[in-house]
């Protein structure tokens, strides 16, 4: 059951956002809302503009027109490094971990916007810096423990199974205790069991934050999200509850094409998952495909 929509001014509001890349219109008057404690899924075929929308929200891309408001304040000239203090965290496609930092350091970096130790105390190693470091490391260790990956704390991410890396990336995003979490394909490359757990985790994160989720695995999106927004060619083609979106002819068209459908596209996993509206969980075929996929 979707939580009651919060009144205007709370949460994230994107209004008529338009982004051009040269002559290409990547986003065309896209509007969407993410209320506090709501999980919103953003789906659409490749190139629909999902990541561009994330980039516009996080300040990597400047929109030509339109506004992004967060908690009632318009975000105009914000840059990516401002997000942490605004209470917004984002995971990157893939894992985006720093290969030269240990898992613990990677996660500790998520708290970076909230650290205050001055340069002098950092240089001298006095208590102001060392106490803060101790606290951050404790916090990072406990977030890692929550996600069940604490035994990798001292390892470097490159040597770890992919599923562990994804969890570490999530742990880093959670370190800043965001009120809005932007997840860019959190389930890509995960085993079916990991995906199930991820879905449950996102649902429970809702107690503390709103989540905007870009994902290609329709079963995960359908099971996890309160509302779904469908993008195609930079425009919102449908929005609503999972059931509404599933029944929408525009969505079928976006994913499968018009009646004369490209058979290759129809065979793609995302397409078949979208078409399969009977199974909310992973299908047997998908489970077989994923069980071969050892996380790592």
């Amino acid at each position, binding site marked *: 059951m979707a939580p009651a929509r919060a009144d205007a001014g709370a949460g994230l509001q994107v209004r008529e956002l338009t982004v051009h890349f040269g002559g290409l219109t990547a986003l065309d008057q896209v509007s969407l809302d993410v209320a506090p404690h709501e999980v919103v899924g953003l789906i659409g075929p490749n190139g629909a503009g999902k990541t561009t929308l994330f980039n516009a929200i996080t300040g990597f891309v400047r929109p030509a027109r339109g506004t992004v408001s967060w908690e009632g304040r318009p975000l105009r000239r914000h840059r990516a490094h401002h997000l942490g203090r605004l209470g917004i965290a984002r995971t990157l496609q893939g894992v985006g971990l720093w290969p030269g930092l240990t898992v613990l350091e990677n996660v500790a970096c998520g708290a970076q916007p909230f650290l205050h130790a001055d340069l002098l105390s950092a240089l001298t190693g006095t208590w102001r810096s060392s106490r803060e470091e101790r606290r951050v490391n404790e916090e990072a260790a406990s977030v890692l423990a929550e996600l069940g990956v604490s035994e990798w704390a001292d390892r470097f991410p490159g040597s770890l199974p992919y*599923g562990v890396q994804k969890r570490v990336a999530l742990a880093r995003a959670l370190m800043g205790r965001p009120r809005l979490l932007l997840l860019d394909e959190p389930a890509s490359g995960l085993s079916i069991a990991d995906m199930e757990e991820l879905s449950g985790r996102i649902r*429970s994160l809702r107690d503390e934050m709103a989540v905007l989720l870009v994902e290609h695995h329709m079963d995960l999106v359908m099971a996890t999200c309160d509302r779904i927004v469908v993008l195609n060619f930079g425009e919102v083609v449908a929005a609503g509850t999972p059931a509404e979106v599933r029944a929408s002819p525009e969505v079928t068209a976006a994913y499968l094409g018009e009646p004369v459908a490209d058979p290759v596209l129809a065979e793609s996993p995302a397409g078949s998952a979208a078409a399969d509206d009977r199974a909310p969980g992973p299908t047997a075929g998908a489970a077989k495909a994923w069980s071969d996929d050892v996380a790592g």
Partner: protein
Amino acid sequence: MTSARPDSAGPVTASPPGTRWPARAAGRVRLPRQPLVRNLILLIAGAAFFYVLTTSVSTYNDFQIGEIALYAVVLAGLSLLTGHNGQFSLGHGAFMIVGGYTLALLQAYDPMNLALELVIATAAAAVAGVVVGMPAARLSAPYLAGVTLLLALALPQLAAQYGVFGGEQGLTTTPPIAPGSLNSQQWLAWIEILCALLVVLVLSNLLRSRFGRAFRAVRDDEVAAALSGIHVARTKVLAFSISAACAGLGGALLALSVGVVNTGEFPLSLSIALLAAMVLGGAGSLIGIWWGAVALVYMSTWATSLSKQLALGTSASAYLSDAIFGAVLIVAMLAAPTGIQGGVRWVLRRLWALVIGGPPTARAPGAQAAGGRAAGARASGREVAAASANAGSAGPAFADGSPTMQSTGPSRHTEEDRA
């Protein structure tokens, strides 16, 4: 497994500083050793080592030990810049010039306490580092190398142009007066050693702080660093400035130790030799810099004596030092791509493994799996899951044989039942 975090009800920014990171019982907490205490112990140990060394060798060797210390100061900064922040500088000789001339000018016009003079020289180089670092923060490695190279070429010319800098002859410096009956060469060496140990101490503190972590995050992935709230450009400028400050201090010490500062002391080849020595020692290692500094000082000494033995002409002997340095660098990079310190670390790990009779660290992938099996009943379910995930395929020891790395046992079984 729930991810609800009991103490995260309110926004972090709203909580008072003292309660921002409340300790939590969950998880395996790693307490880092108190850095100040640990580093002070290392500082005292280093000081004791150098005290014994300097008192047991000749005056000329004292001079060379002092030189090693001052190059260690410069290399420490360069090692931080390249090893931890991923920026390259071919022009650190220029910051040595800034430090050296600042010291000489201070001594000429407004003599004061030597410690204060050194601090001001360091600060002047730090400011120069900010000025150069600001445009440098927007440049990628090859362009940055070009800019810093230009700096190393241009600054000596500039200094030679103006009378206040003493032209080609440069400026003289006053060596510090040794207290009591102490040998002045030894006293100078001690000052240089103290500076080097302090710089290593301070930088190792810094690298363990939020700043050091930000340096490394920016080095590895700028986009991810920005998303973690790190101001990428500011972090790069800070690293550049700290690195320049170290070079400035080294330059000031060099001016003291030589007794004169002129542009001929800081040729372009010095900047390049610094970079090579830093790489030779091991980029990013504050122990490796000492290997690099030893190489910088002794390589030319050895080359000179070698060319005397071989009875080479003056022009050939002038280049022999560079040739030997280059050859050593190539051989070292082939033998130990992570520098001498990387090689030393590798050897020590191997020796340690021989002594202990097991894998070097319990955290190596294979080691964990092996440990889990050996421990048998002691191994927790999570360790087993980790081991199977690490091994890539489930071993016969795991009855369910699931290749997934789910750490919560029950949900895995329900998952399989459904599938």
